[in-house]
């Protein structure tokens, strides 16, 4: 601990802090462009110049004669930082004037406008007038930087965050600075575009509008985006993300800083892999097989929802009550033959709702874990010069091969209710099931031919999924469910970190969030509320005791970290 005084506010700073971090502890912002917590220090933008001095043991204060870059200056006991003196303010104004010298000021068409540090700092620390008396230097835009990245060269402030990212985090080193002085530009070598799996992060890192995502380019102004804190479901790393939406459409995913999960970044598979939630082929409404449909809807009118004089048919009322009676029938006929398949895309709450419901009806009902999609092997960064993986201990980012968010969470529920963990393959191999309840939610097709054949034509087949599959085609009951962006829930990542995800948009058509389907199916009182359910799970399931608080905070909480890899 080091006692540091920032603008007369005394704080306890960490001995490893630089001036920016120490000031942040005191609630004082030191503006900066080139410095980033996850990257090395270059102190090139000069935006964080502050006055630094020292309080001697005898009480005298000695201030340094020159301004120093706050990002590069470590603090120690007795350090004094001044960010509000006239000297510092003048330096900030001059730095901003210099950075804006050749900036085109095309905020009106710049995608960054609204979340741009040039705008913010100019507003807070800048001087509105420019003294430039020459035409501005104009440079060509570069659309060839990467498949997903465009560079608007003249907006760049040469902070080199992007260059350092590709050198230090992704290790692929595609980007570099070319030329010198005021002709400096970011560029790639010919025929080596910045297309690595982490490339999308340079767009987030860019403090100005120089690097833009082609995917998001001109799609929406950022001030209209509303953001929900969520968790990426692309792999078991479980990156914390922001889901940015406007009017029920998700426009982009951004990484959310989480030191417990993934750090500051996310991979492009996750970043651009959310498109399936707006796929037109999504299941839009619940469906009963023709044989059941007529029986169920004979007294449809009586089950219409009514608001005053207004009446409308709710497709779910019939389907859910019918499903419930069918499940009861099937369990009464052959409880051991009723198999519920819980997918690792379910949240802990949903798995708990379904598992506790079925087990409360009959202990002999079998619960199994759905397919765990695994693609290749873990992809670790930073890459070496020849593309080789880093040695253990040097890993800064991992894209995991297990392409589902919540295997550990669902496993914990299954172990509690079933005692042992049975995979779908094992259940299929035994071939004694008479009724199936499948929960899907996978972002890509998951019904393989062997599953399809093994399931055959059971007496009852219920499928709760987001996309049509051979199983849903011939299912007796199809429940149109939701993706991660449409529901609240808890996901447990590869290391046992349980994170709360919030829904951002509504489901398409008459599809419903899985939690809501299961709340009504299981005839629980009230609406689906993830926090209440977490409290309940924390009490009931010993291995998930950490959820008992209900609130998992910004970063999530660790549940037991014991891990048995299914696939090693």
């Amino acid at each position, binding site marked *: 601990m080091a006692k540091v005084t920032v603008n007369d506010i005394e704080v306890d700073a960490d001995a490893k802090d630089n001036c920016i971090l120490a000031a942040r502890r005191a609630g004082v912002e030191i503006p900066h462009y080139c410095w980033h917590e996850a990257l090395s220090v270059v102190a090139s933008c000069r935006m964080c110049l502050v006055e630094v001095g020292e309080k001697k043991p005898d009480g005298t204060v000695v201030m340094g004669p020159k301004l120093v870059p706050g990002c590069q200056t470590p603090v120690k006991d007795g350090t004094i930082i001044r960010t509000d003196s006239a000297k510092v303010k003048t330096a900030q104004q001059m730095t901003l004037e210099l950075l804006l010298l050749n900036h*085109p*000021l*095309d*905020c*009106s*068409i710049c995608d960054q*406008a609204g979340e741009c540090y040039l705008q913010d700092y100019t507003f807070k620390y800048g001087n509105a*007038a*420019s003294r*430039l*008396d*020459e*035409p*501005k230097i*104009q*440079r*060509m*835009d570069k*659309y060839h930087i990467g498949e997903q990245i465009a560079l*608007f060269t*003249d907006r760049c402030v040469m902070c080199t965050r992007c260059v350092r990212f590709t050198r230090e985090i992704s290790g692929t080193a595609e980007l570099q600075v070319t030329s010198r002085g005021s002709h400096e530009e970011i560029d790639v070598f010919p025929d080596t575009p910045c297309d690595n799996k982490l490339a999308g992060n340079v767009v987030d890192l860019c403090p100005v509008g120089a690097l833009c995502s082609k995917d998001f*380019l*001109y*799609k929406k*102004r950022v*001030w*209209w985006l509303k953001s929900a804190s969520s968790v990426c479901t692309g792999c078991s790393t479980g990156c914390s993300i922001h889901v940015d939406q406007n009017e029920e459409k998700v426009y982009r995913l951004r990484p959310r800083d989480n030191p417990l999960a993934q750090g500051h970044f996310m991979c492009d598979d996750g970043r651009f892999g959310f498109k399936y939630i707006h796929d037109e082929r999504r299941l839009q409404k619940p469906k009963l097989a023709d044989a059941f449909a007529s029986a169920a809807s004979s007294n449809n009118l009586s089950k219409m929802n009514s608001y005053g004089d207004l009446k409308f048919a709710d497709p779910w009322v019939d389907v859910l009550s019918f499903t419930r009676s069918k499940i009861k029938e099937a369990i009464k006929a052959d409880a051991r033959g009723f198999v519920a398949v819980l997918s690792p895309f379910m949240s802990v709450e949903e798995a708990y709702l379904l598992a506790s419901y079925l087990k409360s009806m009959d202990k002999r009902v079998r619960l199994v874990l759905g397919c765990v999609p695994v693609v290749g092997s873990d992809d670790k960064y930073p890459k070496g010069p020849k593309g080789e993986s880093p040695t253990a201990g040097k890993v800064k980012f991992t894209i995991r091969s297990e392409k589902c968010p919540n295997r550990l969470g669902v496993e914990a529920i299954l172990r509690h209710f079933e005692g042992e963990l049975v995979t779908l393959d094992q259940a299929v191999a035994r071939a004694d099931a008479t009724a199936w309840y499948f929960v899907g939610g996978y972002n890509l097709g998951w019904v393989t031919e062997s599953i399809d054949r093994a399931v055959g034509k059971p007496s009852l087949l219920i499928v709760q999924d987001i996309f049509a599959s051979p199983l849903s085609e011939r299912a007796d009951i199809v429940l149109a469910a939701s993706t991660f962006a449409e529901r609240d829930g808890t996901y447990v990542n590869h290391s046992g970190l349980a994170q709360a995800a919030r829904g951002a948009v509504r489901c398409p058509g008459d599809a419903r969030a899985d939690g809501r389907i299961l709340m009504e199916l299981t005839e629980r009182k009230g609406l689906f509320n993830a926090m209440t359910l977490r409290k309940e799970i924390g009490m009931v399931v010993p291995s998930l005791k950490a959820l008992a608080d209900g609130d998992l905070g910004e970063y999530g909480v660790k549940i037991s970290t014991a891990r048995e890899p299914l696939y090693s």
Partner: protein
Amino acid sequence: MTFNKSKTVKWGEEPKLGWREAMYLPAIASGLATALRHVFAGKTTTRQYPEVEPVIPPNYRGVHRLNRDEEGRVKCVACYMCQTACPANCIEIIASPAPKDDPYWKDRDKFPQTFTIDELRCIYCGMCEEACPVDAIELTSIYDLTGYTRKELVFDKEKLLSIYDATSKTGKDPVRTNRGALGPASEEAATASQGPPPPGRGSHG
């Protein structure tokens, strides 16, 4: 936070009524006198509309138009400022990257793919005009807006440009300013320059 009332606000008092004013008879009499004076003045003020059209002041806020730039393209850069400023939510823009291969568009980065204004929902406050950084949207002096259907009065980009073509040359609604490609801020250095101003972001490809 507390304000010193006497310094920030000028407080007025309603004048107290005496017994004479409280009867209201003098006020009624003076009102009648004014009415009668106009009856016998022999000067009619009835306007013979539509045979004689009224003179509309130049700051009248009527139907919108979308201005064109020197090349005849839509001047709007699709920055969404008008849509953001609009209190009636009647403007809807869908932006697109300008076609880079087309030489006609090569110096433009972004343009409005569609630009629709619901003229019935609009309250003609002029906020869009205020917000526009490139003076692309302007309110004209057209006040007699009629149509048979509501749909007809949702104006799209072509319609708004045609209003520009129809009004800008008549002299009644001249283009008020000539701000350039990206707004006043981007022009500051250009106006200070001794040489000719740079042509927007002309060299972009």
